[in-house]
């Protein structure tokens, strides 16, 4: 390797369900160069120091959302976080907070996947169009209304940043709510009424106490806190408008 190679200490929270009762820290000495990410650091550990270390990754370019870890206590994508920024201090790596640890840096994301399904993350067409009728058209303003919320890569960093999710794992949480909002404000979609039931439910937005850290850590600037809080207003409006609307749904 090049001459500007240095050695950094990486402290990893290990947990192997077959033999460990509780997780424990393990420190590795990792040679690194300036262009190496934290993900490359843990890959080095797996390749050369301890092959049993488990973690998820795929794209290594901040787009697949699978490499999220707590790095020095902050939820981060390990592929876009660089070792040089921590040197000469030790860097601490831990599985994403608030999720159960399956093994080492791998979390159990079943709960999140269920939530993702529950919000119906697809367009429920307002009016069905046949192929002959052609595509659905949208103005740039209509695109603007939801575009930011469509950038979510399901990395779950926002969940690791949300103490309310940590305290009540049932809470639908920032990421799923951002996606729910993305479809609700899409001009082609007609599924809002169905999704609003979830928004206003026991697991819905009212768990949120506006801590706001979720939006801070989001690598795609989705601003999930904004989606959650806008929907508090929407849910409250729905609730009160119900009393005003005449029965039978007539306008």
């Amino acid at each position: 390797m090049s001459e500007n190679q240095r050695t950094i200490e990486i402290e990893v929270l290990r947990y192997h369900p077959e033999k460990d009762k509780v997780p424990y820290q393990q420190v590795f000495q990792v040679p690194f160069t300036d262009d190496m990410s934290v993900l490359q650091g843990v890959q080095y550990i797996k390749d050369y120091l301890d092959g049993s270390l488990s973690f998820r990754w795929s794209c290594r370019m901040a787009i697949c959302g699978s490499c999220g870890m707590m790095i020095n206590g902050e939820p981060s994508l390990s592929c876009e976080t660089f070792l040089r920024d921590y040197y000469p201090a030790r860097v601490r790596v831990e599985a994403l907070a608030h999720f159960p640890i399956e093994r080492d840096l791998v979390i159990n994301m079943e709960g999140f996947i269920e939530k993702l399904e529950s919000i119906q993350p697809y367009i429920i067409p307002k009016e069905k169009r046949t192929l002959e009728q052609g595509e659905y058209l949208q103005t740039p303003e209509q695109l603007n209304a939801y575009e930011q919320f469509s950038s979510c890569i399901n990395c779950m960093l926002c969940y690791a940043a949300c103490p309310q999710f940590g305290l009540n794992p049932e809470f639908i949480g920032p990421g799923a709510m951002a996606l729910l909002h993305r479809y609700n404000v899409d001009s082609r979609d007609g599924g809002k009424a169905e999704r609003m039931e979830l928004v206003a439910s026991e697991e819905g937005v009212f768990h949120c106490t506006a801590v706001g850290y979720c939006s801070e850590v989001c690598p795609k600037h989705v601003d999930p806190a904004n989606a959650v809080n806008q929907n508090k207003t929407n849910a409250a409006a729905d609730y009160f408008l119900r009393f005003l609307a005449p029965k039978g749904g007539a306008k």
Partner: protein
Amino acid sequence: MNKRRPYVRPMDGWWRRNPFFVEYMIHEGTALFVAAYAGILLNGLLHLSRGEAAWNVWLEGLKNPLYIAFHVLALVAISYHTYTWFKIMPRTMPPVIVGGKRLPDGAITGGGLAVAAAASLVLLLAVWGMAR
């Protein structure tokens, strides 16, 4: 046999884990000062309703150095609360579109703080005018 045994980490002391959470807890904590101050004013109103003598007792009580110290503390706490309140405000409202462009977060926070400062000033001047 299933070897899975997902480990759930405890949440004890969660708010000490990150400076962001500490700031959030201070923000929430300063709300107690807002409530306490409302209590003081209500108490004043109660005394006022009982006539001039009772009102003067309340006014006299306010001159206690401990009370004055509390007022200074409350001012600091409520200022901090105001600041963090408007800092989070852009995250809690629908986008404001001005001239086809989305108003940046800084403008919303700055606008909120300016309105709060102006309202406080107007109130201060009004009370000042009435007291003279």
